[in-house]
């Protein structure tokens, strides 16, 4: 069962702390390799909290862990903290401004229980070498 939501990205304090502590560390994956979903969207998805999901947009696809939104409710809006995971799926078009469209990407979310959330370095490395599923 897949749901369609509007994806935004941005800073969280956990993202900031984990980023300064080292992007190669597991804490960075815990802080940013997630998607914050509204309880109503969890219901539609029919998944438990903290299961891995695959997020797909017209621009790419990434596996992250679905968690309940801490700053909610906001049905229909999903949130991935800024970082390589969000950047796999955001809209890179700048529409002649220089600024990629990091906020407001329509995405599809489906459960992917058996797929792992990659670390930031692994994600970028595998992505660049074309080794991602």
């Amino acid at each position: 069962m897949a749901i369609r939501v509007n994806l935004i990205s941005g800073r969280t304090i956990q993202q900031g702390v984990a980023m300064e502590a080292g992007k190669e560390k597991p804490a960075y994956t815990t802080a940013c390799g997630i998607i914050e979903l509204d309880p109503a969207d969890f219901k539609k998805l029919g998944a438990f909290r903290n299961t891995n999901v695959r997020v797909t947009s017209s621009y790419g696809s990434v596996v992250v862990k679905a968690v309940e939104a801490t700053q909610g409710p906001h049905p229909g809006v999903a949130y991935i903290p800024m970082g390589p995971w969000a950047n796999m799926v955001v809209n890179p078009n700048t529409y002649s401004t220089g600024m990629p469209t990091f906020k407001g990407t329509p995405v599809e979310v489906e459960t992917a229980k058996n797929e792992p959330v990659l670390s930031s370095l692994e994600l970028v490395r595998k992505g660049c070498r074309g080794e991602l599923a």
Partner: protein
Amino acid sequence: MTRTVTDVICPFCGTLCDDLEVVVSDDGKELHEVYNACAIGAEKFLHSQAKDRITRPRMRQEDGSWKEISYDEAIEYTATMLAEAKKPLMYGWSSTNCEAQAVGSEIGEAVGAVMDNTATVCHGTSLIAVQDIGIPSCTLGEVKNRADRILFWGCNPAHAHPRHMSRYSIFPRGFFTGKGHTGRKMIVVDPRPTDTASMADIHLQIEQGRDYELLNALRVAFKGEKLPDVVAGIPKEKIYEAAETLKSGRFAIIFFGMGVTQSLGKNHNIDEAIAVTRDLNEYTKAAIMPMRGHYNVTGSGQVWGWQFGFPYAVDLSRGFARYNPGETTSNDLLRRDEVDAVFVLGSDPGAHFPFSSVKKIYNLPSVVIDPHETPTSEVCKVHVPVAFVGVEVGGCAYRMDNVPIETRKVVDAPEGMMTDEEFLKRVLGRVKEIKGV
């Protein structure tokens, strides 16, 4: 024994807090504790002490593993790469001091590079808007002492600028704002009920991407004209209430962030936000300020402003400075395969650029100058670790309100490590030799 260094500047975000206290060992080599900083700032200081810190330059091998190289070899590779490239991209510049930025610009001029800073994915669209219609702004000191109406639009300072509200905007008691937060009204516009929004007197939970409509509606509401029942998901009564709250203040300030700059509409949203500020000045005193992210992204805009006349996306490849966002900006250049080498300093495009751009960097000759191991170092051919600016070396940085502040050195860098400025000076020297100038 330990000693405490006071009045330390925090090199994390554009708030540039200047009241940190850092406990260091007597010989100045070890850093023990950080006081007064937010969680992120403290982590930045403490991370400089990480045991697994990379202290020597390294080069990527054929099989993907790293080989340690000397600083001389790294300088030679960087200078040759830049000098041989037809149009190199020199990106970053926001997490270093103005002195290093100035040397970087000299290299850029010598090799005909495109110089771009992190504003390109942050407040670049704000800069376009400012060039379009100007900006009525002020300093954070004026906000602290005078502002009684605070509007946060598309930003979440509780998470991104953790001490902004306590030092400047909501809580402090200033000269004319002796009641602190009880004398202030706080309005937040955000599609999510964020931790910042939960503190607000009025939260306008806007539909994502409808900023332009709501800004426009506010201008209508200021004049008391008719609004449709709902604009951008907000009932009109709430918009009239917010407009009245803003008008009734003595000094209103609008802080805006990525919610405005990165949503569709982009610079046009900010044009309209500035127009709201201008309209508000018919009734009271009002100002507007972008919430700048990196602690010295403002500084790189200043340095290039006085050197080239443009704050970011400066194309020097024709021997003079050109500026055309959408053409000379990093992501557009990478997407169109218009650069043939990438040099990164003081930023992490590997983590913060859309992946399609990261992939382009991976396929080009590339050097990253960064104390950390990052997704950018993962895709670059050479990684040069350097001393932390603001922790292990001082230098000038600009706060988000364009006030220059001298950052301080608190501990020594690990032995034998170069600073950004030293590294760039050596590269500049070598580039001049290669170019014969």
